[in-house]
């Protein structure tokens, strides 16, 4: 029998064996070739057994996590490019200029409004009257009154518009959103400044907008955080100090003016808020304190329970850890806090801050100081891993009873970023499920921080 034929039969026997036949049944199909085939077939089966070692479960799981984390980091690096602040500011200016020019062009193309018939009738009447032997001053007085009535109408409209705008801009939500936006932009500008790229016009823009936000909070202090506002003003002042005054003296002076003005308003705002915020309880509190709308939160409606595949992002109003604003990210299996400026990748929120997210892994992009952070949360196991540059650290171990990494351990790996990650880890909690006992029975990886550069040897 030729070698090719023998190899072909061996292949067929192996396939039949894979399909569930016993070796004897496989060989029985080739009685004439059995003598030559059987030693080879049995040897092939022995080889398969000899090399059938499986990796340890612990290694498989840990290596899987590390591979996926590495994949997440690559994706993060690919999307990490930021435009220069100078370019962004100039593009913004050009965009606004273009919008203004287009608006002017559009207005030019519109024919003047056709005057209502009665205006001409009135004019003709006045002209006719002027033709009579009346004193010349009389039509002048009529014209003046006409103009006066027009002015009153315009003034009324302007007042209405002003009231509308005040109501719109004065809502605390709008001011808080604008502040969050400013802070996010400020972070980028600071990052660029650390690389030696700084633009006065960008700082001026931020300072002016901060000033406006402070105005909004001054008119409606609900939800105002004077410390936060002051911090943002200070950070802008720090940036301004890095700019040489000779470079753009006028702009530097104007920016400084904006910041001083904003700071003065914040001081005044803080003084207004302080007494209510630090009110100490009396020694004998009244059994039924009278509720005041400013201090007593109205009973918030219980949030609708999430369904599988849904994510809710909501503000943690009472959480001011590390002087940051925090949001809660919540799924049916896992919840944890993140700084308000961080973003969940691939999540679009709908009404009630709820969005759809079906992947097993959730990626959150953010920054701590000047360091970009990628947070990877395994929504099934509850394990949370953070990547900061070349450092990778486990923030929380997997499982319902997964342990958060200790602050000391985190600081030893990621330095100043440790406290933020520590708060994320300690805030994380897995939802209780019916088969929780089963989940806790299986061992989960611990949250001991490890660096990617020196992976810990997996258990044999």
């Amino acid at each position, binding site marked *: 029998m030729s*070698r*090719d034929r*023998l*190899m072909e039969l061996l*292949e067929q026997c*192996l*396939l039949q064996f*894979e*399909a569930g036949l016993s070796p004897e049944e496989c060989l029985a199909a080739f009685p004439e070739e*059995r*003598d030559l085939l*059987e*030693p*080879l077939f*049995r*040897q*092939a089966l*022995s*080889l*398969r*057994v*000899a*090399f*059938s*070692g*499986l*990796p*340890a479960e612990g*290694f*498989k799981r840990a*290596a*899987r996590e*590390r*591979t*996926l984390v*590495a*994949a*997440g980091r*690559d*994706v993060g690096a690919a999307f990490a490019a930021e435009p220069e602040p100078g370019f962004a500011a100039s593009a913004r200016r050009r965009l606004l200029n273009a919008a203004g020019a287009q608006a002017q062009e559009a207005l030019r193309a519109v024919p003047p409004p056709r005057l209502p018939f009665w205006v001409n009738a009135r004019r003709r009447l006045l002209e006719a009257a002027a033709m009579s032997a009346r004193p010349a001053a009389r039509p002048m007085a009529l014209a003046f009154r006409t103009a006066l009535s027009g002015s009153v109408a315009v003034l009324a409209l302007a007042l209405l518009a002003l009231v509308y705008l005040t109501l719109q801009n004065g809502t605390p939500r709008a001011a808080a959103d604008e502040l969050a936006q400013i802070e996010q932009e400020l972070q980028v500008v600071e990052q660029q400044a650390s690389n030696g790229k700084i633009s006065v016009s960008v700082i001026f823009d931020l300072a002016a907008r901060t000033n406006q936000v402070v105005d909004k909070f001054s008119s409606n202090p609900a939800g105002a955080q004077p410390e936060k506002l002051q911090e943002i003003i200070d950070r802008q002042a720090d940036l301004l100090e890095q700019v040489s005054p000779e470079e753009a003296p006028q702009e530097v002076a104007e920016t400084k003016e904006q910041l001083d003005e904003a700071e003065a308003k914040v001081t005044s705002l803080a003084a207004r808020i302080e007494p209510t915020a630090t009110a100490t309880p009396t020694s004998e509190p009244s059994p039924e304190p009278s509720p005041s709308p400013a201090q007593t939160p109205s009973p918030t409606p219980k949030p609708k329970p999430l369904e599988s595949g849904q994510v809710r992002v909501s503000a943690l109003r009472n959480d001011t850890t590390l002087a940051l604003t925090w949001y809660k990210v919540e799924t049916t299996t896992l919840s944890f806090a993140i700084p308000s400026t961080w973003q969940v990748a691939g999540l679009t929120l709908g009404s009630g801050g709820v969005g759809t997210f079906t*992947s*097993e*892994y959730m*990626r959150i992009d953010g920054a701590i100081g000047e360091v970009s952070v990628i947070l990877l949360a395994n929504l099934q196991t509850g394990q949370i891993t953070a990547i900061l540059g070349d450092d990778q650290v486990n923030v929380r171990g997997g499982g319902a009873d997964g342990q958060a990494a200790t602050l000391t351990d985190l600081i030893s790996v990621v330095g100043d970023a440790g406290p933020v990650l520590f708060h994320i880890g300690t805030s994380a909690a897995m939802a209780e499920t019916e088969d929780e006992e089963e989940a806790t029975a299986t061992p989960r990886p611990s949250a001991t921080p490890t660096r990617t550069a020196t*992976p810990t*040897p*997996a258990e*044999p």
Partner: protein
Amino acid sequence: MTSSFSQADGGSDWEPQRQVVEAAQAGDLDALGALYDAHINQVYRYALARLGNVHDAEDVAEEIFLKMLGGLPNYRWLKVPFAAWLMRIARNEVVSFARRNGRRAREADLPEEIVDRNNNDPQEAAEKVLVLEDLRHAVGLLSDAQREVIILRFAAGLSVADTARSLGKRENNVKVLQHKGMQRLQALMTPKYPELARRQP
């Protein structure tokens, strides 16, 4: 795909595999996880067979998947199974690891699950373990090309066609190497275990 001869040889059901690979190329972490799950045993077995040491095999298996991440954007779907492409990376990584660490394959203890399998009779189980250890030792005595084919075929579970793609050889060539390798194994094993060459009663 791990050690299934039928699946490795089939090739009829390409579309699901293709979709997973393309999703992984687009950065879908779930798809990457699925690729990892489908191939980790195969990659580990290959590394263990080549290096003979559990710790080295684990290190290299993980490194192979990291290399796979780097190469994934360049992988082109031309009906070349992903496993064949992955095992090419595995081969390079094993060679590079052995060179870097100045190591040759060492004898590793057989995994527990093999030792304990069908151990109704402890005496018989112990004998089987000895045979399997000798067989692995004998594989180490083959020529490089024969050993590579035997390990890809029986440790990684690749088909003849995929082994050929992975090694950049023709299928005929692989068949010849496999046949010669098995004959040589027989020659090495028969003096010690003459019953292996005989037809089973």
